């Protein structure tokens, strides 16, 4: 009987559960480390052995978002009392927040780098997935001359390691004035993701029976309407999966962002490690920057999780 477990099977189950737990802990440990460090006071960040129990503080995040200067002497009692609660944690660390003449807080480079990352990653994802979807539809539904060769060519653009072309790309970008621009990185990431997007979407498109569109064509719709009303909703699963992968690639890209940008269009990945506190690197600030940087991908993947689980469209067509 399959339902009845022997004692051997039960023991095996327990071993499996322990193994799964171990693997999970190993995988989650670095993430825990980042999150924990981003809430630690600076002096606990690099203790040996590592500090596990501590009183969480917001100071790394305050430091992440602001410009600060070292205090020569402790703040006066009025100064301390007048400061908002989040500023006091910086005082405690021996620093003070830099304000302009009007008393406005001076922001650090992080928010603008984060925004750059969002703009560049989202735009290049939309472009790569959009163009990939159209291209894949074309390859999937129409007779294209030399289809196999063209698809191979598209794939071949990924065969060279990207860093190999970094220097020529840098020179070309400098010549046309694309370095340190949003457009430059958007074009670059779109180009990198496009071949992947075409191939992945082609697989999904091939799985959508062409009878769906044909039914729509006969029912009085144009090819374009049929594409948007029928094919696109059916391809949602594939589009979501492709978008997640493209977004992660563009979001995490480090090498080109480091070479091609330095200020205006710099993304978060090259900025985060460049952050040093006054004196030695402040690991808590780097950790808090990394922690916030991890969130968009996690949120994006979480929002699309239903689409990533396949099987929604099954059963409506008889094969």
């Amino acid at each position, binding site marked *: 009987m399959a339902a009845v477990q022997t004692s051997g099977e039960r023991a095996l189950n327990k071993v499996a559960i322990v193994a799964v737990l171990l693997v999970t802990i190993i995988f989650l440990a670095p993430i825990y480390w980042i999150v924990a460090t981003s809430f630690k006071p600076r002096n606990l960040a690099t203790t040996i052995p590592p500090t596990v129990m501590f009183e969480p503080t917001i100071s790394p995040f305050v430091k992440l978002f602001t410009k600060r200067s070292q205090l020569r002497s402790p703040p006066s009692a009025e100064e301390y009392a007048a400061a908002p609660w989040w500023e006091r944690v910086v005082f405690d660390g021996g620093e003070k927040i830099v304000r302009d003449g009007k008393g406005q807080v001076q922001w650090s480079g992080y928010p603008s780098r984060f925004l750059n990352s969002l703009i560049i990653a989202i735009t290049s994802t939309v472009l790569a997935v959009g163009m990939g979807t159209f291209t894949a539809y074309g390859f999937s539904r129409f007779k294209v001359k030399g289809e196999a060769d063209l698809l191979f060519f598209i794939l071949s653009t990924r065969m060279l390691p990207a860093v190999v072309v970094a220097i020529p790309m840098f020179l070309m970008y400098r010549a046309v004035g694309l370095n340190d621009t949003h457009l430059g990185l958007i074009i670059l990431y779109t180009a990198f993701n496009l071949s992947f997007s075409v191939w992945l979407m082609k697989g999904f498109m091939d799985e959508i029976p062409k009878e*769906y569109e044909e039914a729509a*064509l006969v029912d*009085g719709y144009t090819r374009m309407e049929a594409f948007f009303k029928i094919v696109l909703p059916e391809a949602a699963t594939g589009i979501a999966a492709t978008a997640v992968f493209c977004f992660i690639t563009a979001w995490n890209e480090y090498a080109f962002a480091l070479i091609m940008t330095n200020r205006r269009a710099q993304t978060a990945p090259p900025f985060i490690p460049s952050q040093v506190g006054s004196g030695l690197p402040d690991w808590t600030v780097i950790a808090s920057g990394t922690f916030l940087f991890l969130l968009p991908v996690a949120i994006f993947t979480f929002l699309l999780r239903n689409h990533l689980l396949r099987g929604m469209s*099954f059963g409506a067509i*008889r094969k």
Partner: protein
Amino acid sequence: MTQIELRGVQKFFGAVQVIKDLNLKIADNEFIVLLGQSGCGKTTTLRAIAGLETIDEGDIFIDGKPVQHLKAADRDIAMVFQSFSLYPHMSVYENIAFPLRATRKSKTEIDSEVRSVAKTLQITDLLDKKPSALSGGDMQRVAIGRALVRRPKAMLMDEPIGALDAKLREEMRAEIKRLHIKQGSTTIYVTHDQIEAMSLADRIVIMHAGVLQQVGTPDEVYSQPANLFVAQFVGSPVMNVTDAAVAETASSVSVTVGGAAAGFEFPRALLSKLNGHAGGQLALGIRPEGVLIRREATEGFVPVDTHIVEPLGSFDIVDLKVGTELLRARTKSGFVAGPGERVFARIDPTQAHFFDKASGKSLEVRL
């Protein structure tokens, strides 16, 4: 009022010609079945009429107007696919309403038309469901509803019930027929199932290898097959086809099958009707019900031995050894006990067909 006409239609897929010079006129309200094996060009013909496939030569007319330059959307034709292809992300209601949304109809008009079609097809209680929650038969009803709702000029059906199981297929066959009688629209129906074709069609169009073989009422294609292909494709159990030699005897004509000692007796009129084809180029076709058997020796009946008996419930099919050939005869159940029995057989001349072996064409011998 919708007539459809195909004139000299040719279609190639690369070097393969899938439709060869097809000419066909379909009258208003007619139920036409395109019948043939897979790959015979019947589905391509249907798709060409729908506008899903271009043709390389010839003309297609709908109501006298050529339609080659029209897109599928502009031909005002509805199609039911074998796979039903209901849009999975839409409810049954939305599926049926979808063709109407392409027109400029108001919401209330669309609603009333969807509900009236749903009522006709008895699927009103399914309107809120998603296609994935439906049974095969219901999916097909919805697909037909989606085709009917626009009141198209013509309905095209590509093996609409081919994916259903046998019992449901029989039910749906009756339903489609009932619906056609009630709605009365020009219908072209593609199938490889000759029983479906016989039971549904006003006229059957039989195709083979891209060539039209015969067009006729179910009775015509059954009782007057134009060639060997039609003769063997239509009818179950399959027609016996064997080489035959015709010889004149004192009182009549004898047709010998499989080099047997005794020939089957035919009236003298056969000779003149064969018109000189009596040589070795002759094939005899006879349906199992045209092979008559007696248990006792009878005038005009030839002694033969039984071979295999297939009991089929309402009747049996008995293989008779005639010389080197086997003739299948249809008998009452249990008429013959088993193999090796001596019985007496005769071929009913009025049910016999003669074909030219070389061309496969019927010699149109009717006795």
